[in-house]
């Protein structure tokens, strides 16, 4: 089923639309995120 993510801090509408579709078939679980508006920021590994 499809759900809309909300702002974590206060539950208000998220500024960038984000949905997650959650399914389970034959014991296999899937989370499909649709994330709008991003800079694709992926920093180098830091340990």
């Amino acid at each position: 089923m499809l759900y809309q993510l909300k702002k974590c801090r206060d539950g208000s509408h998220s500024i960038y639309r984000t949905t997650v579709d959650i399914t389970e078939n034959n014991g296999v679980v899937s989370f499909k995120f649709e994330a709008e508006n991003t800079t694709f920021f992926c920093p180098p590994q830091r340990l």
Partner: protein
Amino acid sequence: MRRKTQRFSAPHSGYNILHSEGDACEVLIGSDPERKVYYEIEISPDNDLMLAEMVNHGFDENNEPILDIHFVEECFVKGEVVKRDNGYTATVTFPKEKILSGDGEVYFNAYRLETDGGEMDKHLFALNPTMLPKFRSPEYFVYLKDFI
């Protein structure tokens, strides 16, 4: 966040990279009735995966979670990312039996971190908002059976 990394192994390129300082989608999921032990699955727009068993010992004096992080060497999560002009689709798929961390009902929460190019904590979205600027709040986990 105080991290006690028990062991780190990166058997695959792009696997078990700590990328939570960038953009990512995350799922915390488990079945430990005390909600102390659960799995954390992260996927970045570059399709880097992180998979770890987390042991949450509560919060320190600064209200930061005290976590033991046990990276999972044998990745049982399949990740897929499709980038578009204005966003991306990230999918994580895994056998439910692999994330069982106890004999209770399976619970979870789902999140998106968006940094707008690297500004930490700028945007944090949640399926079940924690009403905090942080997302590691086990009391806000919801039951998987109610969302599928």
